[in-house]
């Protein structure tokens, strides 16, 4: 699968704003009685990419979902490209793309329809064409009219990354992008991430595969029990 990341996106240039790509000020997040993140403070300089590591349940996914504004912080402040993730939620949502464990895909729709739905929400004038182009790019061109329900885990991952690319985000939040992929798929995903970075997108990568992650990211944040610790 050859993926060409559109390099015509003027918003994707890293030097446009001097604000850190990502700034967490004393951020905590509680799920019921459990603290998933506890008083986390961190800043990711503009133009750098971040590798998030830590065991299961250490707070990586929570952190990504907070930055994506899928969740609101219980306490503290999250800033994305200088925008407050609570006050300017819609602005932040337009700038970030989240590749999550959950694929955000409608099982009963086809691959193409899934992308068309998002393209319409984003206001693309010709959603069908945009969707077809992206499906070809992630190597799902021939399966575009099949319902997602019949897709393998790898194909879902490809469709989910197409969904992320459709948003043309300035910050790509990738939660275990290599999970459920075969070696060829992992290779392709590495290519996508490299191209995202080359086009100026800030990548935040949460993964167990520290080796792959270290070659792709300049910064690293290791989480343990919702706190930052030395790796």
């Amino acid at each position, binding site marked *: 699968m050859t993926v060409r990341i*559109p390099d*015509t*996106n*003027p*918003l994707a240039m890293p030097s446009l704003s001097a604000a850190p790509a990502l700034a967490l000020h004393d951020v905590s997040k509680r799920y019921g009685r459990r603290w998933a993140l506890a008083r986390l403070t961190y800043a990711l300089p503009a133009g750098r990419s971040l590798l998030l590591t830590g065991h299961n349940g250490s707070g990586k996914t929570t952190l990504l979902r907070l930055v*994506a*504004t*899928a*969740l*609101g912080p219980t306490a503290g402040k999250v800033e994305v490209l200088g925008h407050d993730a609570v006050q300017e*939620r*819609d602005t932040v*949502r*337009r700038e*970030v793309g*989240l590749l*999550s464990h*959950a*694929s*955000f*895909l*409608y*099982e*009963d*729709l086809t691959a193409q*329809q899934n992308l068309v*739905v*998002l393209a*319409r*929400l*984003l*206001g*693309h*004038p010709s959603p069908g064409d*945009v969707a077809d182009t992206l499906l070809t790019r992630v190597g799902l061109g021939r399966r575009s009219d099949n*319902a997602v329900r019949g897709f393998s885990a790898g194909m879902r991952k490809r469709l989910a990354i197409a*969904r992320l690319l*459709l*948003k*043309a985000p300035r910050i790509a939040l990738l939660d275990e992008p290599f999970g459920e992929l075969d070696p060829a798929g992992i290779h392709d995903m590495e290519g996508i991430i490299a191209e995202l970075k080359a086009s100026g997108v800030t990548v935040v990568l949460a993964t167990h595969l520290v080796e792959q992650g270290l070659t792709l990211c300049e910064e690293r944040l290791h989480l343990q029990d919702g706190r930052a610790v030395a790796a």
Partner: protein
Amino acid sequence: MNRPAPIGLLRATLALLRKDLLIEWRTRARLNAIVFFALATLLMFSFALGPDTRLLEKNAGGYFWLAILFASVLALGESFRVESENACMDGVRLAPADARAIYLSKALGNALLLVALGTLLLPVMVALYGVKVVTGFVDLGCVLLLGSLALSAPGTVYAAISSNARARDVLLPLLLFPLVIPALLSAAKATTLVLQGDPMNQLNSWLGLLLGFNLIYWGVGFLLFPRIIED
């Protein structure tokens, strides 16, 4: 692929409504099951009350709306189950789509479904209960439309809540049934008047009550729904 300008509330609502209807169409087997459930309910009333056609005819309006109410609980639950699979609701929220557009599209979609269901149930009711449409099909259409809108406005709010809680199947009717009593009462009463004649010209006051109920709950739902689905 430049990012297009964000779309407004109305276009977002239409895009989401189109998506919901597409899913309903592609999963029409599920839709059929709901229709047959409502038909079976109508049939069960006949059995439970014995073959007294006069009694059935007299109470037809009530049975009709009870069948629709029971079916609406299934349809509402289903429409949010589709969104919780693969966390699709998150995908739509983060697109970003206005939460109020999500409310309007869901509530309108469910109302349309109930109108269609009512249209299908009517001939069956004529056959089973021996009713006649006395005051005309325009009146009946008004009752069906207003009644369906009245059930789905609060129903959508409560389905969104209960779909994320434990024991969702019990919770939705427990919350919804007491709330829709005024709507059920006036819709059943108005239907009875349409089917049995309206000598005292009461139909309009019941339709007025339904309209008021709709205005209140569409307004409240529109205002409060974002608080339910956003963290």
